[in-house]
């Protein structure tokens, strides 16, 4: 036992530390560096095994330009003078590095040196933050969807989900959001946004898919709503396109865009919309369409799903004649009231993912 205690005591006794002294470069230091270097090489190989580099297809200079990073988008968005200032600051920072020994002379680090360190760090951080701020200010179209009081802290709720170019802060570089981000929360009110009417792929009598596509194709939620506004004021007349349509009437040209950043559809005057819809159509759904075109009420009652079933039991029972209690009946009302909007909401089918089969005669009517 005494021997064991002696053994353990010897094993765990605190050995006196050797005073640190110089050691030859080889083998002590060189082998240590070699070991660390080999570990690094192994880590590189493992990284390459797990995440091999990807190879994209050949560049298409004539193709759609998608900014690789916010830098390119920033260069396009910022005014020339500000971009030149930014480039100058970046080059100036590198130039400053050359002069650090001159800025901080002396044998040891002094208080002046610490001030230089702090100044450089602050300059670097402020430079980057300033660049982001300028980018954010100029990259987001001014006057359209910018509203004071925006909940900045919530940007990432929508912008962070988009798989596209984005700033290092996680905000998409194009300032655009896929419509699914809106509809993900608002699908419980499809009639309010005419989602059903305009986003379904309809089937023509010949069996062709007719892309209607209000939201996925030609319109975005932000055409009428301000996604940057506070939640209680998402519809901001005067700020959105809808507001400008109301103010401009026929003279307002509605810019159709198939995607947020490319391929603009030929512009159409707003009057092409309100041949069928009144302004504010998003409130009452198809009610206004029916009012302008009474036969649409009957037409609506003949619509069927692709599998042959009617829209709903209410409309199936009303197929013999125009129903009086649905929103699709010809009604002589002059204005869209809360009650009609409410009926439209309750009468709208809950299923939205099926294609709509249009009868041949109805198709002729619709044309």
């Amino acid at each position, binding site marked *: 036992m005494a021997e064991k205690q002696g053994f353990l005591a010897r094993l765990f006794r605190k050995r006196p530390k050797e005073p640190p002294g110089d050691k030859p470069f080889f083998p002590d230091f060189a082998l240590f560096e070699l070991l660390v270097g080999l570990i690094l090489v192994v880590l*590189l190989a493992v990284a390459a095994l797990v995440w091999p*580099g990807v190879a*994209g297809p050949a*560049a298409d200079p004539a193709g759609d330009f998608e900014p*690789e990073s916010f830098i390119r988008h920033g260069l396009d968005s910022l005014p020339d003078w500000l971009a030149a200032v930014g480039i100058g600051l970046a080059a100036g920072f*590198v130039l400053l590095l050359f002069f650090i*020994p001159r800025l901080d002379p*002396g044998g040891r680090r002094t208080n002046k040196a610490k001030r230089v360190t702090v100044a450089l760090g602050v300059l670097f951080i402020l430079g980057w933050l300033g660049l982001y701020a300028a980018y954010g200010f100029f990259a987001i179209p001014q006057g359209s969807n910018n509203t004071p009081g925006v909940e900045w802290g919530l940007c990432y709720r929508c912008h962070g989900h988009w798989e596209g170019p984005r700033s290092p802060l996680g905000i998409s570089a194009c300032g655009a959001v896929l419509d699914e981000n809106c509809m993900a929360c608002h699908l419980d009110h499809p009639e309010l946004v005419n989602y059903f009417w305009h986003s379904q792929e309809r089937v023509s009598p010949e069996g062709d898919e007719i892309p209607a596509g209000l939201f996925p194709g030609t319109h975005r939620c932000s055409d009428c709503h301000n996604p940057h506004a506070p939640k209680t004021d998402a519809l901001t007349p005067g700020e959105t396109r809808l507001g400008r349509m109301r103010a401009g009437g026929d003279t307002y040209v509605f810019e159709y865009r198939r995607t947020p950043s490319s391929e603009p559809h030929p512009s159409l005057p707003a009057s092409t919309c309100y041949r069928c819809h009144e302004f504010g159509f998003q409130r009452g759904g198809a009610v206004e369409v029916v009012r302008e075109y009474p036969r649409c009420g009957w037409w609506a009652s003949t619509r069927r799903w692709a599998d042959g079933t009617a829209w709903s039991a209410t409309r199936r029972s009303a197929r013999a004649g125009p129903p009086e209690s649905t929103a699709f009946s010809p009604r002589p009302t002059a204005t869209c009231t809360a009650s009609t909007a409410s009926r439209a909401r309750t009468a709208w089918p809950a299923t939205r993912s099926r294609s709509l089969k249009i009868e041949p005669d109805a198709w002729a009517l619709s044309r």
Partner: protein
Amino acid sequence: MSEATREKIGGSRWLKWLDERFRLKRWVVEAMKKPVHPWARKWYYCLGGLTLVTFLVLVVTGLILLQHYRPTPEGAAESIGRIMNDVWFGWLVRGIHHWAANVMMVLIVAHMLRVFLTGAYKKPRELNWIAGVLLLVTTAGFYVSGFVLPWDQRGFEIASTIVAALKKIPLAGDLLAGIVTSVTPVGGEALGFFYANHVIVLPLVILILLLFHFVMIRRQGIAEPL
């Protein structure tokens, strides 16, 4: 290493053969025996050496990739695809090249931060600091041009971005952009520019700078901590 081993190595007839011709024994022995101070054996003093390791990895893998790469707008992406799919372990070599480039950028910045925070740029090491900054700039040049070389959409857009940024510079913008490419928008000339710099110009520059950097470290030693 024991004295006996040292003597055995020193007495090697191969080394004697070499020394008879190059007369390097005294210099090599002096370099190997140069004492390393205790403060220089901390982990954050290894960052410069690790940067060199990644550079050597990049040289080796880059030379392998060079055998299969085609620096033309039509053939670049296709040759990269061939490296990834057909060349024996080409995907691994390219992956290591890719990761080593990223790690080298991180290490070189970390190394500069260590030098800056420990005040190792002070007299008499000012010139070595300047060489280090030039090495940083050269490495950044390698890094950016390397992204352009595959000439996929990302590489093309990076080249376009560089040209767009150069054009924003007042007065000299068009001249600088013209050095990169003589046509607008960016075409094959830009790829040739980045290729020539990546495999010829920048390697020569970095070799000269590295030689200067290491010779100065050898002559001046590693700076004492503050």
